[in-house]
Structure formats: structure tokens, C-alpha cells
């Protein structure tokens, strides 16, 4: 730390802001440590350790609002930073504004989502990486690449209305990709908020088996297929649905869910929630950036859009209750959850007459966020299913559709669910396997 603890930093910042005569002020100070080991071709490529602290300040005066962050955390520097920010508000225009809650809150750390064993993990990571690589090799992968991240973040809040609190989270994740012959590759993930839930061997095994199964893959015919999406692929799409449920995206014209509250936007089996804190969740905290207590919010219930994610300003504008999802500018989800179904993976495969199983994807890009039209590129394990059984591995394809049509065409969900967070999924998401009918698969010309 820089000499001051997080509460001291907040006290200095809010004390300075109040003396300047602001209407509202929030200080959020955060300290994070992150240890990482990366490997490729079964060999370590780099070991990283980052320790950072940051102070974020929000000020409002006469409906003028400003936001700033700094990593220069000496006492004098913080006071000057707040004074400079206040001065910069002089020329600002009035904007949408909602005051902070007048009644102060006190937040104590959540009892879930924190494991002391992950606090100082550092030199142990190479051994864990070795375990994953060995499991991948034993399962058919010839060379593996991946990354293990272990980290802790603590955030403290103080507002000008007296709200005060602190919360911490830990997480450890492994993303491993194993390669067999030529382009054959498989993918494995393990994501956990505790060391006991971390399974590098299992992730390595999946990656190795996937690579082995992908040997001699060929391209599918373009057309409509039933697809079976792994939790990894489904989470990537679920995150875009939750992004579209942010009131900011709706306002900005970048949401296909605009004007759909109370309407059917997905199959009846789809239940999507966001949780500030949830057992096993790798993200979130007990308070949001505005000092409002986070909670569990139903976004989609039985296929019907229940509401948007809000901060104080968007909630005031929409005349609805704040959902505890600030972001000072844009509300955002903390930990997403899709309810499970009653199928096993094996049953879902058997139900497919002409289908494709996708285990990983990347590069999801939208033609139009307002309509939800997008495409994404499958990678690693992908398999053709004919008559209820896997017949061959596939490569060189693209999945394109629109989000509402896809989520309205979900036919089965698995009982088993997994926490997913990796390169292509920022928001931790608890997600089942998802079977969807009539999805467009294309392939490149030439």
C-alpha cells in the first residue's frame, strides 16, 4: 500500500470534497493483487505479479457531475486531485442527476467469495500449470498453452452522506488450450473463488481430450442446425444479453431489449439473473459504486424481460427502483446466472437429429446492437451430430443469428452448470449447456 489504507484515503478525499461545498461525493478506493503464470508449448513463457491501488472520486454540484481516478495516492496529492477536479467542474453543463441516498449505509464484507488461501498465491502457480499440462498431455494433447490467474481485490467506499463500507473478493482461473495434430485443438477452463474449487487437472484433461477428438476435422455444409453450446459459448452470448439489459445501452440505442420490458424475449425455460453477491461468484461486492446495496435482480424470468439494470441516475430518469448496478455512468452486471434445466449432456446430444456441438468461441461481433444481429467464430472442440450421435469433428465455420431469435429457440438446458470467466467472458457467469434450434452456420468462400 502507499502508506495510507483504503479508509484513510477515502476520508481524505471526502473531507476535501465536503469542504469545497459539493452536493454529493463518493470515494471508492481499491487495492488489487494479481499473480499470473502463462505457458505455451508446454513451457512457461512469463510469470507476472501486479499490485495496484487506485482512488476513484465522483463529485456532483448543482447538477454538474465529474468522475476521476488516480493512482497517485499520497495524502497531499489526493487533496490536490480532489480540488482540481472540483475546479474543472466550473465549466460543465448540467446533466441528468439523482442525489445519493440521504440515509447512510454501513457495509461489512460479504462472507462468500473470499478465500485467504488465494491471498498470497504466487510461486505455487507454476506447479499448478504443470499439473494442467500433464493432464492435457496424458489425454491426447501434444502441446498446451494457457494462463493461471490468482488475485484478490478489496474495495472501500465512503460517501458524503456517510455511507461507508469495504468488501473483498478472491478468484483463481485457468484457461488452457491444447493442440494435437495440425489444427486440432481443445479447450478447458476452471474458474473458482476458492482454492478448493480450482481443478487444473480436470481443465487440462478436457483440453487434451478435445484436441485428440478434433484430429482430421473438416468443414460442415452451410445451413441451419440445432446447436448445443457449452457453458463457455453460452456465457459469451448471455453476457451480451445482460449488456443489452443495461439502462445505459437502452438509452444509447445499442440494445435489442429496448421497449421490451414485460414482453417475451426468450424461451420459457430461460431465467437470467444478476447477483451482487452469490456463493461461488467470482465478481461483485455488497455495494455498488454509488453506495447502494447490491442485490439479486431477475433480468429474464420464464422468457419474459422483467426490467433493466439501473444506477441512481437511470432509475430516476426511468422512474423505477434502483437495482444496485452502478457504474456512475453505465449500470452493469456483477455475477450472471442462467437457471439450469433437467437434461444431462448425453440426453441433449441424443435429442439432436442434425446438429453441431460447440465448446468454445471467440470474436463475437454485432452488425447491429439495436436488432441483436451478430456472428461469432467457433474454435477448439466442435462436432457434427447426426441421428443423436457424434459423427465427426468440424472446423472452419461461423455461427450467425440474432440474440432474441436464438434465446427464443432454446429447447433444452442441462442440469449441470459451470462458472465461466475468461478472455471472452468478462462477467462471471453460472451457465448450463444450452441446446438451440435453427441456428445459421456459414463458412468462408475460397
Amino acid at each position, binding site marked *: 500500500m502507499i502508506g495510507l489504507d483504503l479508509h484513510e484515503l477515502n476520508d481524505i478525499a471526502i473531507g476535501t470534497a465536503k469542504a469545497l461545498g459539493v452536493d454529493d461525493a463518493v470515494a471508492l478506493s481499491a487495492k488489487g493483487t494479481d499473480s499470473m503464470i502463462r505457458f505455451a508449448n508446454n513451457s*512457461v513463457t512469463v510469470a507476472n505479479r501486479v499490485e495496484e491501488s487506485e482512488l476513484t472520486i465522483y463529485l456532483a454540484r448543482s447538477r454538474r457531475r465529474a468522475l476521476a481516478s488516480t493512482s497517485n495516492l499520497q495524502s497531499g496529492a489526493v487533496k490536490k486531485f480532489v480540488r482540481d477536479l472540483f475546479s474543472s467542474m466550473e465549466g460543465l453543463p448540467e446533466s441528468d442527476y439523482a442525489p445519493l441516498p440521504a440515509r447512510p449505509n454501513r457495509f461489512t464484507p460479504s462472507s462468500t467469495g473470499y478465500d485467504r488461501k488465494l491471498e498470497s498465491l504466487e510461486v505455487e502457480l507454476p506447479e499448478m500449470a504443470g499439473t494442467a499440462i500433464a493432464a492435457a498431455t496424458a489425454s491426447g494433447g501434444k502441446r498446451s498453452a494457457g494462463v493461471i490467474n490468482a488475485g484478490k481485490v478489496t474495495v472501500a467506499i465512503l460517501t458524503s452522506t456517510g455511507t461507508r463500507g469495504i468488501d473483498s473478493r478472491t478468484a483463481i482461473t485457468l*484457461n488452457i488450450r491444447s493442440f494435437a495434430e495440425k489444427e486440432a485443438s481443445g479447450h478447458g477452463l476452471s474458474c473458482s473463488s476458492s482454492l478448493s474449487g480450482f481443478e487444473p487437472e480436470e481443465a487440462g484433461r478436457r483440453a487434451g481430450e478435445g484436441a485428440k477428438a478434433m484430429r482430421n476435422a473438416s468443414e460442415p455444409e452451410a445451413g441451419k442446425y440445432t446447436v448445443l453450446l457449452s457453458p463457455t459459448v453460452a456465457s459469451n452470448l448471455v453476457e451480451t444479453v445482460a449488456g443489452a439489459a443495461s439502462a445505459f445501452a437502452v438509452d444509447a440505442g445499442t440494445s435489442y431489449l429496448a421497449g421490451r420490458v414485460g414482453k417475451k424475449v426468450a424461451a420459457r425455460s430461460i431465467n437470467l439473473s444478476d447477483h451482487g453477491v452469490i456463493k461461488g461468484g467470482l465478481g461483485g461486492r455488497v455495494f455498488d459504486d454509488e453506495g447502494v446495496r447490491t442485490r439479486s435482480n431477475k433480468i429474464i424470468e420464464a422468457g419474459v424481460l422483467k426490467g433493466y439494470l439501473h444506477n441512481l441516475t437511470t432509475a430516476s430518469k426511468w422512474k423505477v427502483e434502483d437495482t444496485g448496478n452502478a457504474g456512475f455512468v453505465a449500470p452493469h452486471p456483477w455475477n450472471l446466472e442462467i437457471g439450469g434445466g433437467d437434461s444431462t449432456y448425453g440426453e441433449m446430444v441424443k435429442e439432436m437429429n442434425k446438429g453441431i456441438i460447440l465448446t468454445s468461441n471467440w470474436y463475437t461481433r454485432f452488425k447491429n446492437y439495436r436488432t441483436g444481429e451478430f456472428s461469432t467464430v467457433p474454435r477448439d472442440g466442435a462436432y457434427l451430430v447426426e441421428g443423436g450421435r457424434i459423427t465427426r469433428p468440424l472446423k472452419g465455420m461461423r455461427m450467425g443469428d440474432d440474440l432474441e431469435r436464438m434465446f427464443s429457440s432454446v429447447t433444452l438446458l442441462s442440469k449441470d452448470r459451470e462458472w465461466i470467466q475468461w478472455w471472452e467472458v468478462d462477467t462471471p457467469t453460472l451457465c448450463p449447456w444450452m441446446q438451440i434450434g435453427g441456428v445459421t452456420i456459414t463458412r468462408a468462400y*475460397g
Partner: protein
Amino acid sequence: MQSQRAKDLAETGVSKAQAAGATYAEARVQKTWERQFVLKNGEPQPSFFAEGYGVGIRVISQGALGFAATNDLKTTSVGELARRAVRLAKASSGLLKHRVELDDSKPLQRKWTAPETRKVEDADSAWLREVLLDIEGRIADERAGVRLPGRLLYLGAELEERYYVNSDGSRVEGRLPRVGFLGSLTAVEGSATAQRFIQQGETGGLEVVKRIDLVRKVEEEARVMGKILREATKPPTDTLDVLLSPELSGIAAHESVGHPQEADRILGREGAQAGESYLKADSLGRRIGSLEANVSDDPNLLHSNGFVPVDDEGVEGKKRLLIKDGIIKEFLQNRTTAKEFGLRSNGAARSVAFDREPIIRMSNTYVEPGDYSSDEIIKEVKHGVFFKTFTEWNIDDKRLNQRYVALEAYLIERGELKGLLRSPVLEITTPKLWGSVKARSKHVEFESATCGKGDPQQGAPVWHGGPETLLTGIKLGAR
């Protein structure tokens, strides 16, 4: 520029790392400053200001690479950070199968700055807001001939100052000001909608906004969206010619030439995230395109968004001829990969912040200009489609299978531009695309973009661009 104290800290980092057992050490003290303003449908959002200051230390010890970073800039803390980087490297060496070695790039002493006329630090909230209000005033209330109920406008000014030192003797100090715009426009006409994301940016000061004619550009983009919604028709499905605009030439050059020619991908180092490459270490000299396929990456283009005259390993950035006359000539290299290839680095290592290790990145990637005027190259087309701007795009992680969905596109018949087309799709393999290049115009333009790579992610500012590029014998996809 950096204070003497910052320079002393960097020197401390290197000397302490060496004392702890590093056979090589480097330290980069980096200071960032940024100011942003956002208008959402004309409503001001909270103005944003950020400053960051920290040090990253990278070492080699027992043949392994360690990197540690902090914003705790006490001398004792930086010393501890250096020892930690060495400890990490040593601890991971047990899992090491390929020792990390560096090329023999000569130590460099240089102080550089990107030119600016009006200091970027003068970009206060009022100035940023005025620029955005000027744009807003031209596109709100159907002033551009189209209803735009979704208008998200962002303007930012930023400054990066870095001081780099390594144990080989390099001492490099750089100053990089930049101004960038992002806009998301959603147009509605009846039940139809169209969406355009506009990114514009250059290195330089406040003069950038006028130099790139930002306000007029955004207004023109809005005007065209209305026409697309009213006039665009279904694209043809037969085999035809495709004329790529500078914007499309650029994105194709970036995605299917620049990325697969990053040496770290080729060697498998990005395998778990950004992926590998369809190319192998022995692909240099392989034909991948027609004689007209010429693609380069140049970090020294004045005002460019990817201006990197010296990289974050203390190596001067050189123009890279990626594809010359259809032949793969050069990969993007850092000092580690260059050593493996038996070469010298061509200065492609970049880091976006003090807490990120430098990795191989593109700078300004573009199709080289040809001989045709823009009019002449259109006249070459008997039956084709002109892809002028794009929305959705993606590519597989080996960079072989790519897709670009046009927003503004025109039918070309007998050498003349005809009507607008609705969302034609170019979904094509890399060898087919570059093997189909028949001609290039003289007229080169660049677009700014943020290139994603690395873990943790590092969004690097780049340009991509080129001339109008003519492809023959193409079958379009459909959306």
C-alpha cells in the same frame, strides 16, 4: 517529460534486479493522463479525468521471464518489486522448456516526442464538450436527413510519458499525445434500423480534430445512413468483382496479414487467448497472394494512431514489408522472437500501461498504394460490389476465415457506381482474398482502431488503411 526521480526509480529497478540474480533487466516508468467527455443523445454524462503512474520491471533469470508492476513508487518498494520479478522468474524456471533469450539489438539512447501543435493537456472538459456539441448540432433532430434516436459521442485526449531503461544500456524517453473520437449512431426509418460505429484518432494535440475534419466526417456518416435505410436493395449472389475501400482494405490487412505475421503467434505464445497463426516459422518466402498483394506495417507514419518510433524494448521501430508482390517477406518481431528466428527485432514490442508486459503489436498496417486513380479502378469493374464501410466483422484465431459485413456498399455495373446495397457479406479465406487482388488505387486513407491482444488484455491504438483494392472472381455471402 519524466522527472529525475522517475528516472532514478527506473535505474533502481534495473540495478536491484541484477543484484537479485537477473541476467537481464528492464524498467519502464510510465505516466498516463486522460480526459474524456461523453454526450448520450445530447445529454452530458459525467466528465472523466484519470491519471496513472507506475513502474513495470521485466527480468530474465535462470532463463525464465518475470514481470512485476506497481504504482507504489517509494524507492524501497521499487527495489522489492525488482526482487519479486526475479523471484517469480526463478520459481517458474522449473516449468521451462525453452529458455528466453534476447537478440543483439544495440543499446539505444533517445528522446522522442510525437509532434503536437496545441498541447493535449489543454483539452479541458469545455473544449471536449464544444467539439461534441458541434457534432451533435449537425446530426440531432434529423438535421442530417435521418432520425438518429441513438447517439453516443465520446471524445478523449490522452498523454503517455514513459522512461525506459535496460541492463544492455538503453535509455529512452518518449512523449505520446493522442486525441480520439468514438461514435455510435443508430438510425431509424420506419421499422428499419442501421448502426454505425465511428472511430477516429491521431497522435497530436488539439489540432487533431480539425486536421481529420472530424465534425464533417460524422455528419456525412449520418447522412449516408439515411440513404442506406431508404434506398439499399438486396445484393447480387453471382460471382463478381469486389472493390474494397481504404477502410475495408485496412481491416483486411490488419486482421488477415498483420495478426498472422506476429512472430509470437507463429511460435505459439498467444495460443490460449488471441490464438496462433496459419503461418509457420518457415513460411517466409511463401506466396500468399497475387503480384498485386502488397501489405506493410509502419510505426513511423507522422500523426498516425499507431506512432511508435521506439518500442517498449528500446528498439527503433522500422517499416515492415509484410507481403511484397504476393510473397510473405517479414514477420513482426520483438527481441525474444527475433533471437529464435536468428534475426534482429524490428521494433514491434508495445505495452499500453506500466502494468502490462510488452508484447508484439501492429502499429499502422496498410495495403500499399498502386497505380490507378479512384475513378480508373471503378471503371475496371464490369460487374461488382464496392464495400465502402463495414459493421460486423470477425476472423478465426488462425486468421484464415474472415467475414466483413458492409454498411455502405454500392453495385458497380460497367464501370459505374449504381445504387446502394443492403448488407453484402464478404466471407472469405485469407489465401483467396489476397490471391484475388487485381489492382490498387493511388488514393490511401487510414482509419483508427484499437487492437485487442494479450492477457490481461491490452487495447493498442493502431491505424489500418490502404487504397481502393480490387478483388476478382468473388462469391458473396448473405446475412
